[in-house]
Structures are given as C-alpha cells and as structure tokens.
C-alpha cells in the first residue's frame, strides 16, 4: 500500500461515514432534549427508499433528500406524539416503528428494487482540494460529506454556545428546572425530536442516493442501530459522535481493503467487525474502564480529562414531563 492508496481509503472512509455522522447528530439533538427516538433503523430504511424513489421520479437528487427528511420527521413525530402527548413508552413505540419501517419500505419500494437512480454529483472545493493529503480526504468529496462535517460543528455550537442550545439541554437534563426558567419543555422536545428525525431521514437518503446507491429490501438494515450505539459511545457529544461514526466507517473500508490483501480469510471475519466493535465500545463506555484510565493519569490532568471523557446520559432521557 502506498501513500495514495492510504489517502484514497481515508477519503472513502469519509464518504462511508457521512450518513452515519448526519444520523448521529440528529439523534444527539433528540436525546439531548430528553427523548429517545429508537426508530432509527426503520425510519432510515423508509427515508432511503422514499428518497431514492422520489429523486428518481422527480429526476432531482435534492428533492429526494427533501422527501427523505420529511419521512424521518414523520417517524420522529410519531415517537414525540406518543411519548409526550400520550405518555406511552418511547422504547416500545420506537421499536415498533423500526419493524414497521422495515416492512413498509419493502412493501412500498417493491417496484423500485435494483434499478439505477439519481446520484449526488461529486463537487471538489477549488484550492482546498489541492492541499496534499487533507485535500483529497476532506475537500475532494461531494456536498453530503461537506454537509455532514459542517453539521457536526453547527450541532456542537448550537448545543454549547447558544441560548436555544441551553434550553434544549435543560429540557433533557432537568425539565422541571428548565420549566422554572420559562422554557416550554415539551415544545422543545417536539421540536428537536422532529428536527433530529429529519436529519436521520437525510442520512437514510444519503445512503440510497450517494453512498450505497439504489434500493433493495432491507437495503441499509442495521445502520440505524449502529447510529444509536454511536450516540452512546460518543457520550452524546457531536464531535465524539462523529469520530465514532468515522471509526465505524473505517471498519467497513478496512474490511474491503483487507479482503483484497488477505483473500484467504473468510469474508465472515470482516463482516463481524462492526458488531464486535459495537459491543466493545459499549463495554468500554459502560464499565468503569474510563474511570480507571483517568485514575492512572497525573492528578492535575484528571478533572479536565473527566470533563472531556465523561459519559453521562441526559438526566431526564426517556422520561415524560408535565407542568405540575
């Protein structure tokens, strides 16, 4: 493998991870407001199918993305309505929507399987794309990749450096305290569940229109669950979440690369990688591994490290709130 191979692989990792990054940012916004939208796997399948079909029918890839966003928003709105308005169990609703999205996408998309469609054009950024190494990885891509990267920054900034971000986090951490400060908690939750769902829909469409082009039954089954796991792995932070998404993208690219290098190793070994990685990262997050790691560091490093590495779900995640 020479240098240009490595750069090419890294560029492909960026492309592979871009939908996951978008979905992870969306779900982080939702969960930070206190709602778990567990329907990701189903809503991404539906968005991928609808986005593909709509883009094909309209012959416009961006309308495909818009349709995907709407589908994701609708699924999320059902979760929000069920949990906020009807006070039913979020996990149960999300899980049923996951299965429903799977079957519904297979049924509605049955006449559109395995056909060519519209795709996102490649758009290098002038000048920036000529930077050695970094250029081809980050700036010689398409708009979906740029969108994913910019979204990470915007999401981080929105959460941490703006008044609406404080209101959003407040609703997910301690809704009664947010309410005492004049925040309409349930409106925040509706807003960010639906907005997050729209992003998840865009992520689904990004698969069928850009990364894994086309449609077939269960086209991207499993990616929604991986996105949900990455949200935990990333400690509900968009930057760490994006790094997690890239890590998963890397296992995919690595599998392809290694398959070429070691043809004698069965494809099975590589297919298992993302799932084993998923368990291992959740294990690292869930056990006291992080705390042990921090405790062997020099004393003065410990508090800042704990701030960076701490993984704390939003305190009110998955609970309902009523103003009394």
């Amino acid at each position, binding site marked *: 493998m020479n240098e240009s191979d490595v750069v090419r692989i890294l560029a492909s990792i960026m492309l592979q991870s871009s939908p996951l990054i978008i979905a992870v940012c969306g779900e982080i916004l939702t969960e930070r407001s206190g709602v*778990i939208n567990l329907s990701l796997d189903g809503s991404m399948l539906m968005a991928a199918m609808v986005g593909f079909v709509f883009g094909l029918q309209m012959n416009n890839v961006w309308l495909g993305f818009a349709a995907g966003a709407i589908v994701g928003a609708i699924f999320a709105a059902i979760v929000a309505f069920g949990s906020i308005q009807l006070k039913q169990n979020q*996990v*149960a609703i999300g899980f049923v929507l996951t299965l*429903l999205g799977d079957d519904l996408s297979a049924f509605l998309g049955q006449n559109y399987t395995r056909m060519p469609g519209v795709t996102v054009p490649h758009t290098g950024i002038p000048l920036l794309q000529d930077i050695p190494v970094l250029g081809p990885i980050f700036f010689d891509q398409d708009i979906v990749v740029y969108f994913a990267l910019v979204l990470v920054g915007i999401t981080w900034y929105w959460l941490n450096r703006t008044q609406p971000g404080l209101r959003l986090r407040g609703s997910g951490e301690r809704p009664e305290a947010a309410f005492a400060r004049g925040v309409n908690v349930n409106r925040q939750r509706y807003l960010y569940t639906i907005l997050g769902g729209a992003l998840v829909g865009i992520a689904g469409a990004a698969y069928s229109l850009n990364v894994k082009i086309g449609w077939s039954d269960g086209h991207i089954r*499993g990616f929604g669950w991986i996105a949900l796991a990455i949200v935990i792995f990333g400690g509900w932070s968009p930057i760490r979440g994006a790094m997690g998404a890239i890590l998963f993208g890397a296992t995919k690219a690595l599998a392809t690369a290694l398959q070429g290098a070691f043809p004698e190793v069965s494809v099975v070994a590589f297919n298992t990688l993302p799932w084993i990685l998923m368990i291992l990262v*959740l294990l690292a997050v869930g*056990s006291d591994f992080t705390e042990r790691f921090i405790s062997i560091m020099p004393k003065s490093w410990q508090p800042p490290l704990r701030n960076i590495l701490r993984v704390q*779900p939003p305190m009110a995640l998955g609970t309902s709130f009523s103003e009394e």
Partner: protein
Amino acid sequence: MNDSPTTGNSWLARLWPIVPIIAALLLTSVLLLLFNASPAESFGAMVSGAFGDTNKVLSVLAFWVPLLLCSIGLLVTFTAGLWNIGVEGQIILGAIGASWVALHLKAPAPILITVEILVAMAAGALWAAISAVLKTRGHVSEIFSGLALNNLAIILTNYLISGPWQPPEGGTFRGTAPFPEAALMPRLLESRFSPLSLILAIVAFAIVAIMLNNTTWGLKLKALGKNPYSSFLLGVSSERETILAMMFCGALAGLGGAVRVLSWFDSLRQSISGGIGFLALLIVMLAAYRILWVPLIAFFFSAVLNGSITLQLRTQLHSSLGGVLTGLMVLFVLLFGTARSVGIGKKQDTDSGAPEVTAGPASTISSDMGGGG
C-alpha cells in the same frame, strides 16, 4: 386534567380496543389501493391463504408453535424489565445447535430428537447469557448487545451453510443438505406441522404461567422489573435473576429454533428465524403482557403472515404486507390502545398491565446508556 368520569361515551370506551385494529386495516387498505389491488380481494386471499385447506391450516399451526415459544419466553424477560431484542439470535443459535446434532450424531430417532432439542435449548440459553452478562457486568444495554448478537448469529449461519456445512453438491448460500428423516420431528400429513412441537409449546406455556404467578422466582422477576435497586435491598439478586430470566427465554427461543429446522424446514437455512423473534416482541406488546392473550395473538399473527405469503404467490404483492398490517396494529394499540390515553371513558385504577409493565423496561435503556465516566 381530562380523567374526570365521563359516563356519556362509555360505549365508546368499551368498544375502544377494536378501534386501533380497524384503523390498521383501513390504512393497509389504502396502501393496497395505491398498488391498484382491491383490499377486499387481498384480505380475502389472505384469509383463504391461511385457512383455505387443511395443509394451509397446518402451516399456520406450524408457524404458530415457534412464535408461541418465543412469545412466552419474552413474557419472562419483559417481567424482569428486560428488552430481549436478542431473541432473534437466540432462535438462530437454537437452530444451529439442533442442526449440529442432526448433522453429526447418528442415533435412533427418539434419542436424536431429544438431544437435538436439548442442545438447541442450551445454545439459545448461552447466547442469551452473553447479553445478560454484558448487561450485569458491563452495563451494556441488552437492546444493543442483543442486536449485535443477532447480526453475529446471522453471519455465523451464513458462514456455516457456505462453509463447513455446505451440501456436497457445493455451497449455494441457501442452506445445508436436508437432514436424515430420523433427525426430523415427526410431521402430520406431509405438512410442516409437528404435533410434538405443539405438545412442547403447551407444556412450556403452562410452566411459564405457573412460574410467573405462583412461584417465588416469578415474583422476584416481577419485583426486579419494577425496581431493581429496591429488589436488591429486599434480597433479590439482580444479577442472578437477570441472567436466569434471559437464559430461560433463550432456551425457549432455542427450542423454537429447533422447531424451525426440524419441522418447518428440514435443514439449516439462510433466514432460519424468519423474523419470528421480532414478531414475538410485537405479540407480547400487543397482548399488553397478559399471558392468556399471547397464544391468541400469536395465532392471529401466524395466520396473517402465512396469508400474506400466499398473497405474494398469487398477486405478486410483496409479502411484507403482513408485517405492515401487524406492525400498524401494534403501533396503534400502543398509541391509542387504552381509552384513557386518549381521554375517553373513566379513569381506571387497575388498568391493563400495559402501561405499568412498559414503564419498567423503559428505564433500562437510560440506566444502561453510559455511566462509566
């Protein structure tokens, strides 16, 4: 506050449970119209596809048995507050275990089938134990470990049928060679239905029903599902009971997997579970965790899915329609199932178990998400 008694529309409250079902049928009809299919004809085709002749009825029964086994296993894990989404993988491991015996052991049929069943149950239980230990020791939500293990089980199946266990004529990625007749469960009238499997399911049902209501273990699981820490302080070992509940469910799912390979099919196939585990989760939710409803709903699901397969053969409409119909029903029942949730009728203090039981598993996901730092 709209839970004041409203006696005027009590008839609506009484009829309410069927409203979500009708809504699901209506919405499915709309989908059918989108595909230029007549809803009446399609549903008719589904009914005749499920009950049209003896063989079709036996087929519904054959599909029903493993579905029932998994559903009652899930009742146990739901009671303990666990979202055992890994049930799908536990079925697959059961199927793999039974297949391993069928391919490698030569013995008279009764012994062979007994060993197959025991190995299948052990394999399912052990696969479930992985999720359980990851939860109790590593604080990994059983939802995520279950999903990963489901996918790993699928990959393992694919590896086995295209590698070590491929048929002599070469790997087709579709399945192993058919097992010898002695290794298969005796089946009725050339159908896929094995009366033995039904007997096993009935026994399992009775055990679970008694276990949940009349044993100390069942009560411990119920306590654990409602409040793990209080239960611990009251003397319940949450780790032990969590692992046992998962393994119990895994064993029943494994038995279901054995029924799939030894009665529904005659070999290990690529999609051996056929999504039964996920369907079983829906069934238990639709039954609102009440055990007596589980067999009825499972039978209904089996009929719908068998019917939709026939529908696909006859009209080219994708068989996922059955999944859409059942999925919509469960969704609507979850959202609007209790009349109270939409503010109709009287507030009932002892409402159906659904809201309070669902409140249990909800907490598991947030408590398992993170917590290391």
